[in-house]
């Protein structure tokens, strides 16, 4: 009997499956009713947690501050309350020197709350970098249906490390936006195979944007997070100088192609069909992480 994959679970189910059994202690739980004031004005139902569940938990006995977005609720989008809960949690992590882990499932800023969500994401980025400077691990988990896009795509990349599954996608502009901008000939947003090749976990892993690529299961995601808890990834002049070279080289090598297979081939993937079908864990075993792909 097969088990329900990570990407299909709801945020609360993910939390329950990933944390040490019964260890999650929710901050501002549903009865507190900390909810959006914008949505009712627009005739949109509110949610008790405003689409972000936050709390303290333990993973393999180590304490973490954990946040999980609810993708079903307005696309996991980030509004005023949602971002304020997030900033508070990241600042708690900085204060207590406890790793911050976030299960991302968001298309970015909640349009219905306008600029307040945008500022909230900017505040979250400040808070995340403050953690990194302090040597506190910040880990983004990207494996949901919606993925991490818009401001939350950038936020995810600001975290010290990323766990991805083959189902996760990381980007700024989503497929429909790109199709609208570039035309259907240039990018067909109904071609899911192309979308996943472009922004999916495997391509991100080969390029070094995902630190760990794991199976689409809560056990594998949990193990992936645990493997990164001890890696705070502070930003230093040395680290960003190396990144500058790496990202310049990437742009030179692949900036003229539109075909993700070029990246796969250059990374040593010979049987693209088989690699496409492989699970995240199988893929990572076949193509172990070098220091960085490029």
């Amino acid at each position: 009997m097969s088990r329900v994959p990570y990407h299909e679970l709801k945020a609360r189910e993910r939390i329950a499956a990933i944390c040490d059994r019964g260890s999650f202690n929710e901050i501002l739980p549903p009865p507190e009713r900390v909810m959006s004031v914008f949505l009712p004005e627009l005739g949109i139902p509110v949610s008790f947690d405003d689409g972000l569940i936050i709390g303290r938990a333990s993973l393999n006995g180590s304490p973490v501050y954990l946040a999980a977005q609810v993708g079903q609720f307005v696309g996991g989008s980030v509004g005023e309350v949602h971002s304020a809960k997030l900033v508070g949690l990241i600042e708690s992590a900085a204060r207590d020197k406890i790793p911050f882990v976030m299960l991302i499932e968001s298309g970015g800023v909640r349009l219905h709350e306008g600029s307040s969500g945008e500022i909230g994401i900017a505040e979250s980025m400040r808070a995340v970098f403050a953690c990194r400077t302090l040597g506190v691990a910040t880990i983004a988990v990207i494996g949901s249906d919606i993925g991490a896009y818009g401001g939350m795509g950038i936020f995810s990349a600001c975290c010290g490390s990323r766990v991805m599954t083959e189902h996760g996608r990381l980007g700024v502009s989503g497929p429909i936006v790109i199709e609208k901008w570039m035309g259907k000939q240039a990018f067909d947003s109904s071609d899911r195979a192309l979308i996943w090749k472009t922004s999916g976990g495997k391509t991100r892993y080969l390029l070094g944007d995902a630190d760990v690529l794991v199976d689409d299961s809560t056990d594998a995601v949990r193990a992936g997070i645990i493997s990164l808890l001890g890696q705070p990834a502070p930003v230093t002049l040395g680290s960003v100088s190396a990144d500058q070279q790496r990202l310049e080289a990437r742009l030179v090598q692949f900036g003229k192609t539109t075909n993700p297979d070029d990246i796969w081939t250059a990374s040593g993937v010979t049987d693209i069909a088989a690699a496409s079908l492989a699970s995240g864990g199988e893929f990572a075993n076949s193509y172990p992480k070098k220091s960085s792909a490029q």
Partner: protein
Amino acid sequence: MADAPSDTRRRNKAARIARVQSLANGKIVPHEKTADLLGQVIEPGDILCLEGDNQKQADFLANQLASLDSLRDIHLVMSCITLPDHVALFKKGMVKQVDFCYAAPQGTAVAELLAAGQFPIGAIHTYNELYARYYIDLTPRVALIAAVQADRAGNLFLGANTEETPAIVEPTAFSDGVVIAQVNEIVDTLPRVDIPADQVDFVIQAPYPFHLTALFTRDPAAITDVQVLIAMMALRGIYAEYEVQSLNHGIGFNTAAIELLLPTYGEELGLKGKICKYWMVNPLPTMIPAIESGWVDTVFSVGGEVGMERYTAARSDIYFTGRDGSFHSNRPMGQLAGHYAVDMFVGASLQVDIHGNSSTVSKNRITGFGGAPNMGCQPAGRRHPSKAWLKAGREANPGPGSIPGRKLVVQIVETFQAGRVPTFVDSLDAQDPSIMSAMQGVPPIMIYGDDVTHLLTEEGLANLGACRTPEERTAAIRAVAGYTPVGLQRSAAETAALRARGIVKFPEDLGVSPAQANRGLLAAQDIKDLVRWSGGLYDPPSQFIDW
């Protein structure tokens, strides 16, 4: 005696061929000359058959036909009005009468044509009804068809999607009609010959491959917990109860859920080898786990399915395949098999009324009938017995003069459609008067309440076949219609009485607990799991790939 029938049709065909011989090299016509060819071969008053069902389309020929301006007075016969080019034929005023089966993809456009007086309907048919009339009073003078390959002599290879091509070609070719085929490519040697050159007059290599819809692919990821619940109830309450050996499934998510529960829940119930051995169904990707687990003996299909070519070829024990090793289908024979040779039809619909009639119409769209009524009805001509057929027959109408058996005709619906639209209604969607008159008094009913033996919803299972009166049937329908307005009118006492007689069963009566109903029970969670089950032989279309 001058008016006595002789061979006028044959001489007329010779004249048509002579008119266009200069366009062709043997039977091969360059695609640039297609419009010219059609314009000269087709004559006013012709019965013209254009191939196009719910999957395969002679779309290049349709496009070229629609580009003609002077063509008039055509009697169009075709199974599905699917493409904008089909609609264009009417807009241009070419058609004096149309006889067809199904128009859902263009349902709104067709209703508009009708309102504008541009859609002269002869009748709306089921598939086999229309194919049968090709041999009686709707025999085509010209048929425009699609094939995968032709050789230089004009033999055709139809690939996995034989579909309705033979049903069109045979009556046309054997009545001195003209058969024109678009093909994806012309080759020296065909893998196998499906249509002999003898029955083909012209072959055109189209500039693009014919259109094929992946109609039967259902992504397991979109199956809901509620559909799993319904599938569990179906397996216990119908499949196991009647020990159904041979069956047909529709294309909905409910039946996909059943297919995916066979290797898991079905196995747990010990049903393997006892049910679901013989299928009349297209090569559904969601059947791969059941096939790989040894549940299925044979599958015969009315058409192919995009991406299932390698899998079906590699499982020739299960599927019908040609000498070349590749998949073979046949729509009329499949429909006939679905009518006479299977014990159960399982379908779904958008609306069910209080008499159990179901329909896929929605307001102001012309949808038509297609194939479901050929299979979702009682085959009164059936004589061979089976356990399931006899059991359903005993429940239905024991008495002198009655048919001893009954096919299980099962309708599975959720009580509400998306957007909280109730499935159950007092009467089927009132049609626009122009549509009603175009139907010539035939109600737009896909499956008649009289034919339905079982109605299954997430609320419960109603054995309509065992109801004794129309009133009882309505009460049984209300009992499983949940919180729809139709359901809210039920009487608790009536429901209790029906439940006591086993005519209405709720999940707990069937030993199914809604708390257990979970997607985790499915043998495959998504398309990728299906590919894995197939050992990499299934090649899903790219719109279904999310990895």
